[in-house]
């Protein structure tokens, strides 16, 4: 950010994990913070079937192309999405990954078809957090990465509700990128889900708790 370049963020996961909401919320919070932001869902070869990818750029200056080749922060929430986005890694990329011992809820590619663009994940097939125990994910072995594992799925399931899984991830990202005031991101959450929260005030509290948990999951780590 300091050199005027845009901060490039990718969030990748299974359709239904709330990946696009994270992208939207980051962009919205950045707009509100007076920054330039660009968010675009799902393009490129990494986007197939049930995998969902959000691309976000945040900058103090005008942003160029919506497409980029390497990410400053790559967030992966499932094995498939990690595999498909590894081309975005470069030395110094922060690799934020989900390491709960739960398998991500994988949507059958056939349920979505090859044109997983308009309808990323039919809600009926989608889940934020899986139920099956699985092997915890490990970061790729590339030397210059900065891997950070979190247990958002487990935390959501055990302490809050699976529905706020992505908000925990959003909290972690907010802490890592350092360029957005957490209060601003919280406001963006409140704005986006206003109608839902009005219907169900308990959900608002759960979302804010999830966000706070995400923030605190990241201790000293951060982007320089």
């Amino acid at each position, binding site marked *: 950010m300091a050199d005027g370049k845009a901060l490039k963020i990718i969030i990748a996961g299974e359709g239904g994990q709330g990946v696009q909401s994270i992208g*939207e919320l980051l*962009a919205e919070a950045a*707009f509100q913070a007076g920054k*330039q*932001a*660009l*968010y*675009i*869902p*799902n*393009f490129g070869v990494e986007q197939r079937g049930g995998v969902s990818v959000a691309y976000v750029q945040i900058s103090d200056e*005008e*942003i*160029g*192309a*919506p*497409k*980029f*080749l390497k990410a400053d922060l790559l967030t992966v929430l499932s094995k498939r999405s990690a595999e498909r986005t590894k081309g975005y890694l470069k030395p110094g990329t922060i690799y934020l990954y989900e390491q709960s011992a739960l398998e991500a809820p994988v949507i059958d590619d056939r349920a979505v078809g090859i*044109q997983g*663009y*308009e309808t990323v994940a039919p809600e009926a097939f989608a889940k934020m957090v899986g139920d099956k125990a699985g092997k915890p994910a490990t970061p790729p072995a590339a030397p210059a990465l900065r891997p950070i594992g979190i247990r958002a799925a487990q935390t959501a399931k055990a302490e809050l509700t699976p529905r706020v899984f992505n908000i925990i991830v959003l909290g972690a990202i907010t802490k890592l990128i350092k360029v957005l005031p957490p209060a601003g991101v919280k406001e963006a959450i409140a704005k986006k889900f206003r109608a839902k929260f009005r219907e169900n005030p308990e959900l608002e509290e759960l979302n804010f708790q999830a966000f706070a948990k995400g923030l605190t999951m990241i201790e000293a780590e951060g982007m320089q």
Partner: protein
Amino acid sequence: MTGNEVVAWAALAAEADFMYGYPITPQNEIMHYWSRLAPHFGRGFLQTEDEMAAGFAMLGGALVGKKTFCATAGPGNILMQEPIAMAEMMQIPGVWIIQQRGGPSTATVIYSQQELRLTTAGGNGEGLRIVYSTASHQELFEYTIKAFNRAWQYRFPTFVLGDGYQAKLREAVTLFRPAAKGWTLIPAEPLVRGPGIPALDREPVHLRNTFNIEEELYARLEEQLAAYERLTPEVVEWEVEIGPETEVLLVAHGIVARAAKQAQKMLNQQGQKVGYFRPITVRPFPGTALRQAVGANPNLRLLVVESAYGQLLSMVKAELYGLTNPIDTLLKPGVGVTAEEIVATVTKRAPKEVCHGG
């Protein structure tokens, strides 16, 4: 806000009366937002049986004096060429939003700049159209409003040429009422069913697009071509950054021009002398401006960058006919271009490799 939503708001701000549409990705949300907004503002929407019907229904609405528009992409743009040809011949105004997707055929629903040629020169005529190639949400908003004004001012089919990226991405945009900026909206007037009783108060209006003899058609086309020549200097728009020191001129349009601008900045920071030219109207093309920029310096190299295989390039070449400046290319049909790729291309300056590069 997504680009598609921006377009719907722009049409509302431009006081568009009616949208006729047929679903095709990636423009669908324009119809979604418009059909949600329209009833609250006394505007209309009709989903037709195909793009031809949408285009022809647009012409019907415009004929009776309403501001009509439509959005389409890819194969829909192909079908739309038929009504556009009629609009061109009969000078029936209308605004078309094109959100380019990959081609040919169904290809991808994502993105390309492969509809440049089709949008500027499709149809069985001379391509007498006005086409704005936008690069940001702010431009999508402002040029959509402008497109309505141009369409009803000059009565040539007018286009906003966007793409799937612009359609889907979210970035900041400032919406405004045109009056707040001192923009005057040009009202629509009926071409048929105007005031008065035909044959009593006025002559009946009989519009046609067929002619019996060659000379009759030629006379009509001469008039139209002259009108188009007259509007060209009034309509044509471009961006240029060039100096006497410039060694490489990046030429790009639409969203690729954003990558080019960013690359220019990066290269200049590295000490390279790089300029930038972007046609905003891709039809009429700002040929005079480009020729002036290039002609002043015979050593200047061009790098034409586009998400198509030479559609912009052929326009650039036609405008620069006779000049000997070398032209390099970065042509990536159907995929996006990043600033880094442009930087690498300029640095390598190896056109053979970069033709298929990235």
